[in-house]
């Protein structure tokens, strides 16, 4: 359950800009119109020198002012392939680990019902991917935190050299080791409850959307079969009409209607894929949300570790200074066995410990700041995400209802016509 109450600590002090509504006229999108206009097939040699075919997408940008003033300005354009979008997203995730990264369309066709092509080159797939890529850019460009990123801007405007520029940022170095991140989840002591709840929610969202997508694909399969079997009526009625005198006309026209009924399902289901795509966006978003929550666990854990480290070093110094061994240490044991060390040695060690303590204190300060920054920005973005999700998914559900209505209207039409034909029998 999404926890509303947990935001008390986090939201305090979040600036008004990183809040609720994603408006088209904020930040980059205010200054610039962006669209993914076309897709094209290209051939080239890949990294290991083999010939491959791939699709590139045309990103067109235009100054928003020009459009507003009615100036006919040709758009700037840049061709990008899917892998470059992936690179951009990876960069954004690592550079801004407190933002819920907008989703890309799926890499491979999943939740496919059997007649739907799973081929990445299929024109319908390419078209839906184009739309998905455009949605990604629009979301990023209207995100208050992300939209001002330079790399993003260069992605949209500089076709050559962009890749080098991304790698030059060294963003890959920010990747957390899997092991560290994994361990943090189990060993962190006091993560904020709101983040824990949100992580739980993200897992539920992921599970529900994928179950729904799977069930929808199965239903699509079944509906397809029902409609197509009616095509057999078309064939048989047509043949039968040749044999009958009085019934012939009625049967013949009924047969035609059955043929068109059978054919109508293809378009209906193709349209429904757009609905599935919207759900898939939130499947992807759920993972991004979870990543942000786990990042919180990690920053919290690192802070706890640093604090713990500081405490233990201070303790060591205390023991060394006062001679009182409060806790077990090998030094204590060896002191007992071999006698205490010489005063000069003690001084040296005290000095070293003081330095270490200073470092540890710095570390705690840094880690605290990191954690704080993450908490503030992440929680604000999570609230923004939540609103966007509620809006988007609600619209998706309504558009799904509209699709069903459309399908029913078509069905009514066909069967009315068929009935008329039967009456002529």
């Amino acid at each position: 359950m999404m926890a509303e109450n947990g935001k008390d600590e986090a939201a305090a002090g979040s600036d008004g800009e990183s809040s609720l509504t994603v408006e088209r006229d904020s930040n980059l999108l205010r200054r610039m119109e962006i669209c993914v206009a076309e897709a094209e097939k290209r051939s080239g040699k890949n990294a290991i020198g083999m010939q491959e075919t791939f699709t590139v997408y045309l990103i067109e940008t235009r100054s928003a002012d020009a459009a507003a003033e009615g100036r006919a300005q040709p758009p700037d354009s840049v061709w990008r392939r899917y892998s470059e979008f992936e690179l951009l997203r990876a960069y954004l995730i690592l550079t801004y680990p407190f933002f819920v990264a907008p989703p890309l369309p799926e890499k491979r066709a999943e939740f496919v019902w059997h007649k739907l092509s799973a081929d990445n080159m299929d024109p319908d797939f390419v078209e839906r991917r184009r739309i998905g890529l455009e949605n990604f850019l629009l979301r990023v460009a209207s995100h208050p935190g992300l939209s001002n990123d330079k790399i993003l801007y260069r992605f949209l405007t500089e076709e050559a050299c962009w890749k080098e520029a991304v790698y030059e940022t060294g963003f890959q170095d920010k990747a957390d080791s899997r092991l560290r991140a994994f361990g943090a989840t189990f060993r962190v002591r006091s993560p904020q409850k709101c983040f824990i709840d949100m992580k739980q929610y993200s897992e539920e969202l992921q599970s529900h959307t994928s179950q729904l997508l799977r069930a929808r694909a199965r239903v699509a399969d079944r509906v397809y079969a029902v409609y197509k079997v009616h095509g057999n009526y078309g064939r048989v009625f047509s043949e039968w009409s040749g044999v009958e005198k009085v019934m012939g006309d009625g049967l013949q026209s009924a047969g035609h209607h059955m043929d068109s009924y059978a054919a109508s399902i293809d378009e209906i289901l193709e349209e429904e894929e757009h609905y599935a795509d919207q759900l898939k966006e939130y499947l992807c978003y759920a993972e991004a949300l979870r990543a942000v929550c786990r990042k919180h666990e990690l920053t919290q854990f690192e802070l706890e570790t640093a604090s713990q480290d500081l405490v233990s070093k201070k303790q060591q110094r205390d023991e060394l200074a006062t001679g009182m061994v409060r806790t077990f240490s090998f030094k204590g044991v060896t002191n007992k066995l071999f006698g205490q060390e010489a005063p000069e040695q003690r001084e040296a060690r005290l000095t070293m410990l003081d330095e270490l303590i200073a470092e540890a204190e710095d570390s705690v300060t840094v880690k605290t700041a990191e954690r704080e920054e993450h908490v503030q920005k992440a929680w604000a973005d999570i609230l923004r995400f939540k609103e966007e999700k509620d809006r988007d998914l609600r619209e998706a559900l309504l558009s799904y209802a509209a699709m069903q209505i459309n399908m029913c209207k078509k069905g009514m039409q066909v069967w009315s016509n068929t009935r008329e034909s039967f009456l002529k029998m």
Partner: protein
Amino acid sequence: MSGHTVSADISGHMLDLDEDEDLEVFSKNTSLTDEGPVPNSPSSMVNQYRLEDDEDQQDTSAKDLFISVEDPESHITAIETYIMYRVVTKTTRSDFDSSEFEVRRRYQDFLWLRSKLEEIHPTLIVHPLPEKFVMKGMVERFNDDFIETRRKALQRFLSRISEHPVLSHSQHFKVFLTAQLQLLDETFLFSMSYFQACSRMGETMRAMANSVRGVKNRPEEFDVLQDYVENFSNKISSVDKVTQRIIKEQREYLDELRQYSSTYSQWAESEENLCEPLKGVASCAERCCNETEEQIQHLSEVLVPALHEYVLCAETLKAVMRRRDNIQAEFEVKSDTLASRKSDLDALQDEVDELADRMEKSNSALQLDCSRWRNTMRADLKAAFVSSAEKNVEYYEKCLAVWESFLVSQRGESISQRD
């Protein structure tokens, strides 16, 4: 001839009627020699035919015989278990002793009646009975749905016979409807019927043998009819198969739709603002499930039985065509014998004349009955198809209403949220 079955409740009086000569006497006005008391011309016979959507709605203007099959009851004996049906007849015909009759009959009695009718009128089209067993679907014989389907089909059978200008005046039909028969010793009846069946079987074999010899000059009209019968049989079987397949696919769709609906409900539980629209979609899907179920049921109850009956009719038509061919073959054989024999010409000539006469009457009876049958078939199937199409329109209308009300409630809510 079709298999003769054991009828457990035949009285001595009934056995007498099995003599063909007696029957010929009784039924002289109605079978081959006379087209019967009802109008002769095909067009007036066609006019007797009204569009009947439902076998229960019986058009009152031309009918004087109303039959219903009711109240199936289980009977358990030492040897077997069977169902008895009550057959209620109401009539204004003068040749019936009373205006109302009520008797109890079982499936085998119907089989007996039908085989008698086919025997006496080999080239008339006798409506088929529902099948003895239903193999597919593993329906138990005494399952309620099966019994109800069978009851309806038996009623339709009797109704069709009662509407037939010739068959409805058959003595056997009258006896079936009216005779209060007592159950006699079953083993005695079994052996009597068995002997009769054997003797009939001999006749049947001879008739079949004639047909193997083949007909030499089948009149063109019957060639055309033969073609039609074969084509019709193919097409109606195909339509039947397609319909069964549609029902199967619809059932699988229904199963998946139910599961699909529940994924929305489950998701709604972990959402706040989205809870309501998600539940809304779940409920819409569920209601569409109910509509789908109704639609499947309608198909099963209206279209499938109608198609099935005409699949059986197609078989009947083929048998009728074979019998007509046999009659012609018999005539041709005797005719040839006449042409080659020099002596005994008079006797042979009489025989040949008789056979020629029989053949001509059979042919015209068949032609007439065929065009009558085609009109009935057209009316029946048209009604079944129209009803199915209407049901489909209704199905989509209802689903449309469900989704529209969801949209309206959501959009209305969003407007009020903004205010």
